[in-house]
């Protein structure tokens, strides 16, 4: 039996189609225009005339080798900062959340409350003193905090800490305490109990926080632009795109190629981990 399409169904389908067109149109424009030259793009931005692979390779090589953009270096920087930050956030965040959750002392409650209330603090209110503190303390102690990998990872651990602890604490509360008692009776040390028994159980919330932190850190612009600077050697992808656009005003063939290069890693990741990413972001939103 073939179901008949009611007018409502047809309307819904058309709505879907139009919205999808609106949502995907910018990506379509980027993809067609990286195959074209600047003159063709200015003449008619929504057209396929003059598309060729030689132009794509020309655009790609001039963008990738550009000294303002230097794609591989920026990609490597972004990847390194993101991966190390999310790894240490999951590791230290889990450890801290476990201690906070399993100690019903005044201190642990206080630390937890400070973490939770700090989530209201917008980045704008700490960014200026943060940079000056990092500059002064770094100079005083002889540890370079600005324009360095350890410095920015340290900052991400600080800014991502509250949300990570919040989500992980919520999960650890649901893990039965009897498991830990049993381990302790069997002679397991507290650190052993955490790493052998609790941490393996934390996989679902750790996936959630890793996705939330990863998306935020990969796309973040303000913190790296302030801490690493636009002219420094160390640049993340968003900062590199910004620096590139600033120096190549109106060269849309190159700018769109740079934009495409900045987008592609995220899209590839999304194709492989679509369920986890969509679920993780929604979980994080509902819990906080």
């Amino acid at each position, binding site marked *: 039996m073939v179901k008949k399409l009611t007018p409502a169904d047809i309307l819904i389908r058309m709505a879907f189609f139009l919205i999808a067109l609106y949502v995907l149109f910018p990506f379509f*424009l980027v993809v067609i225009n990286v195959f074209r030259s600047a003159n063709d793009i200015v003449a008619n931005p929504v057209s396929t005339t003059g598309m060729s692979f030689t132009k794509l390779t020309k655009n790609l090589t001039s963008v990738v080798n550009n000294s303002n953009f230097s794609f591989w270096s920026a990609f490597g920087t972004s990847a390194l900062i993101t991966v190390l930050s999310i790894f240490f956030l999951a590791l230290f965040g889990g450890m801290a959340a476990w201690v906070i959750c399993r100690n019903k002392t005044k201190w642990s409650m206080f630390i937890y409350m400070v973490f939770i209330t700090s989530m209201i*603090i917008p980045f704008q209110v700490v960014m*200026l003193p943060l940079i000056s503190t990092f500059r002064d303390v770094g100079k005083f102690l002889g540890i370079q905090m600005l324009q360095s990998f350890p410095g920015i990872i340290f900052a991400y651990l600080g800014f991502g800490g509250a949300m990570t602890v919040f989500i992980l604490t919520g999960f650890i509360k649901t893990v039965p305490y009897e498991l830990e008692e049993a381990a302790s009776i069997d002679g397991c*040390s507290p650190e052993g109990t955490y790493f052998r028994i609790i941490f393996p159980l934390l996989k679902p919330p750790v996936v959630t926080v890793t996705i939330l932190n990863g998306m935020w850190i990969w796309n973040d612009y303000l913190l790296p632009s302030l801490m690493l600077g636009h002219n420094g050697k160390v640049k993340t992808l*968003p900062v590199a795109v910004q620096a590139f656009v600033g120096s190549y005003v109106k060269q849309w063939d190159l700018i769109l190629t740079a*934009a495409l290069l900045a987008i592609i890693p995220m899209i590839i990741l*999304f194709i492989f981990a679509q369920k986890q990413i969509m679920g993780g972001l929604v979980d994080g939103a509902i819990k906080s």
Partner: protein
Amino acid sequence: MEDGRSANKAMSQALLLIGILSTLTALILDFTGSRLFFRGELLLAGIIVFFAGLYLFPTKKHHRTIVNIIFLFPLLFCFVVTVIIPFGLGLFYSTTDWNGIRMTEFVGIGNYLNMFNEAGFLWSLLLTVMFVIVNMVLVNVIGLGLAVLCTSKMKAVGFFRAAFFIPNLIGGIVLGYIWQFIFNNVVLKWTFDTFEYNSSLLSKYNTGFLAIILVYIWQYAGYIMMIYITGLTTVPSDVIEASAIDGATAVQTFFRIKLPMIASTITVCTFLTLQSAFKQFDVNMALTNGTGSVNFMGQYLSNGTQMLALNIYNTAITKNNYAMGQAKAVLFFIILSIVSVIQVRISNKREVEM
């Protein structure tokens, strides 16, 4: 067994001693103004060795406490140094004439009074409030609409969900430039061909503002949609079946049954949009960078599309007026915390009712 313990004890004490000594040496070097290149490494190594010694310290009674301290320390330390200390300093600096490096005198609430005499800032504040209100309504209505579409029984719903969600994966800077291209080329060409109107929408403050709203919805509605989908799927199907048996139309079912049952999701999404729209920075910067001339309070302003977060950034970084930028940021924080308090009140009230 005894040998092991005493060896452990000796090891622990040695490590503690080395750790304390190297930390102290590094600090002495710092305070005497030495510029030895390895003093930073010495300090870090000293702290790590000290904690290693603490961990190995042979005690049954206090071992749990030591583990607690070691587990809590790394994250808490980063958090205090990057959030708490700068936050306190920021509150303090906002009452001084701080220039980003040093301060010379207190100005009390001078910065706070001055910013309300600044027409450009008041305009940014007004623009941000309008942006927040418009988006709270539009993003939620569109997000909910998309969620309803995406929960209907249709083929390829999964594809559409993913497609609507994709803009949310990309950073504001990159998609801001993509949309700048669209407005300055595609839309400009179209308006020129049809109306012979030869200036970009982004150059006017009103159309530029609409453009930011359009891009923001484009980026954010897919994300809000996903949360509404989660909410809608929790509505029990027997309730919907019962209403269908009672002869309710699809529209009635939606407004009378589904909507009241996802009230808490609506609260979550409304406040999520509110917070995110209020903090909007990346798209604002990449799309118009706040430009656009406007007449406001008898003054000619050039920052017609500049919202609060960008205004703070430009005041401090571009105009080099750090103390004023910091004072504006503190106000920004105060507004956000009021919003959060209201949010907590509302969700608590709802939980009591349920």
